[in-house]
């Protein structure tokens, strides 16, 4: 299987075509914009919190399939999770792409593994991490 075949799998194209939790939120606790100035990709995250729990999450954005599918996967993964679970997932995801760590996501996060092929295309890593860097800014390290 070629690199682009392994990257552009059904799961990625499905998130791109049918983004989950897509849209602006009227009332929210956290809101963060992220942009890759070199390519112009944009992601905006909205989070509503109930104590420590992310009770609602959504995104809007524009950009390539990888940046938008990654944002969709992020929102799907974090819905109903705690902030500390979010931080842990963020750490794991960025470890996979930036530190070449072998991903070991639990089953509910397995879509994220489809983005592992991105690390073989250095120019696209910033696309895959855009939503996650935006999340990092939103919730703090």
């Amino acid at each position, binding site marked *: 299987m*070629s*690199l*682009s*075949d392994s*990257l*552009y799998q059904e799961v990625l*194209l499905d998130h*791109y*075509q049918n983004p989950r939790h897509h849209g602006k939120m009227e009332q929210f606790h956290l809101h963060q914009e992220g942009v890759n100035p*070199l*390519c*112009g*990709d944009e992601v905006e995250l909205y989070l509503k919190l109930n104590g420590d729990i992310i009770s609602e999450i959504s995104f809007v954005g*524009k*950009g*390539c*399939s*990888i940046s938008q599918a990654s944002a969709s996967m992020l929102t799907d993964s974090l819905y109903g999770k705690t902030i500390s679970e979010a931080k842990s997932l963020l750490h794991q995801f960025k470890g996979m792409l930036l530190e070449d760590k072998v991903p070991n996501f639990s089953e509910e996060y397995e879509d994220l593994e489809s983005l592992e092929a991105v690390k073989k*295309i250095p*120019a*696209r890593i910033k*696309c895959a991490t855009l939503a996650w860097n935006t999340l990092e800014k939103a919730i703090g390290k």
Partner: protein
Amino acid sequence: MSFDLEKIRRDFPILSTQMNGKPLVFLDSAASSQKPKSVIDTIRKYYEAENANIHRGVYYLSQKATEKYEMARIKTSRFIGAACAKVVIFTRNTTESINLVAQSWGRTNIHEGDEIVLTELEHHSNLVPWQMLAQEKQAVLKFIPLNQDSTLDLTNLDEIITERVKLVALAQMSNVTGTIHDLSAIIRRAREVGAKVLIDGAQGICHLPTNVQKEDFDFYAFSAHKMLGPTGVGILYAKEEILDTMPPWMGGGDMISKVWKDKSTYADLPARLEAGTPNISGVIGFGAALEYLESVGMQEIRNHELELLQYALDRLEDFGGLELYGTNDLSKRGGVISFNFPGVHPHDVGSILDEEGIAIRVGHHCAQPFMDFKGIAGTCRASFYLYNTKEDVDSLLVGLKKVKEIFGRVLKR
């Protein structure tokens, strides 16, 4: 001399290399051209046998380097049809050349309420320096609008270029759509109101026979690296009477006449505008690039690119489902093709083509106002130069077929 494509290709070592296990198909010369062996050898020879700083040493090597550096200036002036060599100023790139004009001429001559006219198709390097100057001076930026085919809409030119306009700055040829602008009408109007004209020649000079005196440019900015030369060398041409009035914008070595503890006097042109040790090897290598272009002939290069452009446009049209930008009137267009698969982001197209060894540029091409005008995030851009072939175009089409296969499910019908 006839246009010998096979010989030309042999002159560019990189064209026989492989990318991702596939023969390189280089379709991104609008970003930076490849370099012929003669340029690479000239730079190598300089460092191996002729390296020294210029304008200072009394010893042989320094004099030799100075001579070669200044010879490149003379070659440049001849290549662009300038009246003499001292009106050629070496900078780092087109961007620095334009910033030089903004910081030196602009800060002296643009005042509150004055107007600067640009177009909606400008590269950021011919937009942001003017935004910065306009903010500092409370001047006003105005834009010549575009027709849908990416040519300039000149119907209201007289209302846009008014008596308040001090400068009209625009590209000779667009880096996004390849549009070659009708400069004569704009320059004529600028003369009527006494405005100066700056032409961003980064994309023009490498593809089109150009004569700055015949075409009556006041300022002409371009880069060596898009015309077979090395990176790190930019050129600013300006009419001598304008350069004479321009104060230094960077102070330092080489640009001075006499220095006291509290003040200095400045050197004559061109040194006054070239502070510090320049890119000596780069300028000398650029001289070799100009010789190469002259040996092939700019009109021959233009003809070859037109043939490729027509071939590529026909094939892309036949491919179906693509959105193509730019005019179909090839007399107003250089060898640049911007297109989109509706529904597929350009970056995804670029990654898939890369795997096939095909290098194109994707994204906003540092021309975001144009992307806003079209309501798109970016484009895929294939650009040609003298060494490209119809086979390169065929390879591009094979790559695009693969994109279509992978993205078939999400492509808009």
